[in-house]
């Protein structure tokens, strides 16, 4: 595995953890009492942190897919809460500050980095020359 890929993987883990910590903070500081939304924040935080830890230690590619879907789902939920509402819950603008902005930026970065990681992975697999070169340098990953 080359250096760029390792950096991308660390980036995914860090941004995912940032989103998870932000959601956990909001859950602890009041959101736990908002029906349905509280549970959703708890699940988002715990799954984000779990995926971040496993991606950091070098899990298989489907963890990146899961991270992208989780971050993407969180972005959709954020959009709904600012427009039509989500389970009767809505907020306005960038409140609660600064967690709304932090989470949004972290999730956008997670989705972007996952896309880079997965596209690059496909490019390597579909190119025999690159694959051979990675094999010869011992950088090919399994799973």
């Amino acid at each position, binding site marked *: 595995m080359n250096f760029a890929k390792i950096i991308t993987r660390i980036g995914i883990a860090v941004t995912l953890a940032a989103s998870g910590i932000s959601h956990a903070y909001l859950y602890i500081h009041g959101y736990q009492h908002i029906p349905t939304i509280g549970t959703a924040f708890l699940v988002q935080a*715990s799954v984000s942190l779990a995926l971040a830890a496993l991606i950091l230690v070098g899990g298989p590619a489907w963890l990146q897919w899961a991270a992208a879907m989780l971050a993407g789902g969180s972005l959709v939920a954020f959009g709904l809460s600012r427009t039509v509402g989500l389970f009767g819950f809505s907020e306005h603008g960038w409140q609660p500050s600064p967690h709304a902005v932090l989470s949004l930026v972290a999730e956008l970065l997670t989705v972007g980095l996952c896309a880079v990681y997965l596209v690059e992975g496909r490019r390597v697999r579909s190119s025999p020359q690159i694959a051979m070169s990675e094999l010869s340098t011992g950088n090919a990953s399994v799973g």
Partner: protein
Amino acid sequence: MTDAPHTMNRRQLIRHSAWFGAAVGLAVVGGEVISHVAGTADAARVQGRPTLRFAQVSDSHIGFTGKANSNVASSFSEAIDRINNLGYTPDFVIHTGDLTHLATPDQFDQVKQLMTGLRTPHVFTVPGEHDSVDDAGQKYRSVFGAGTRGDGWYSFDIAGVHVIALVNTLNLKKLGHLGADQLDFVAKDVAALPSDTPIIVFSHIPLFAMYPDWGWGTDDAAQALSYLRRFSSVTCLNGHVHQVFSKTEGNVTFYSGTTTAYPLPHPGDGPAPKPVTLPAAQLHDALGIREVSYTKGQNALALKERTLQ
């Protein structure tokens, strides 16, 4: 299947299963840790009958005749039925203002008559701006003002909870306004209370800046809230905006309630908050009541929104 290009061998299957198991395990452990930090573990231990249960109803606008709801009296009666059929008797019911649409004596008579159908020991109200359109709330106070202070504000204690009813619809400019006398009342009212006393504040207009461009905020609320910062649990309930909305600022959680009359647009949807006309089948989904419960040992109140459907 064995000819498929990406067939997974047994070793790979075991490896992926291990990663999946690790993901699930870590997520569960993480969730437990976060829950524990949040104090939900303690909350689970004190479950049982809540110490205090009450209902919130708001913005009945008795007397409104627009096409957004051609029979607000009927909707309000349904809301009362909803409260009467919660499966328990609420300790009290609060109406967070705009009981009437135009503050006429007939409308006050009608809403008071309807509220006698509530099966609860106490009904508490605050005026909305529609209840004080032409007389700074005099007619409102003549009907609902018994036992109140100043222009209709008051407080009471029940089941270890301190409840404060504020009037922020008189002296309106654009935003709600409490005024010096009422701020002084709040400061003195809570001065002697221990900091672990749960505080519930209810008013008509939000005490937070929900959407100031439409007047959905109170210009001097920050000073009132400054007197409540030392308390570990402060819950502010309001009406006026005809939609469910919640926000947390430090130790204070704000909850806007829905209406029993007609919906208003979401903040910023359109130039002004005019009544929204929904298809008849959807109207009752937008109308509702709120259940609120407090359990001793828990910092925050639990809320359940109930539609009239």
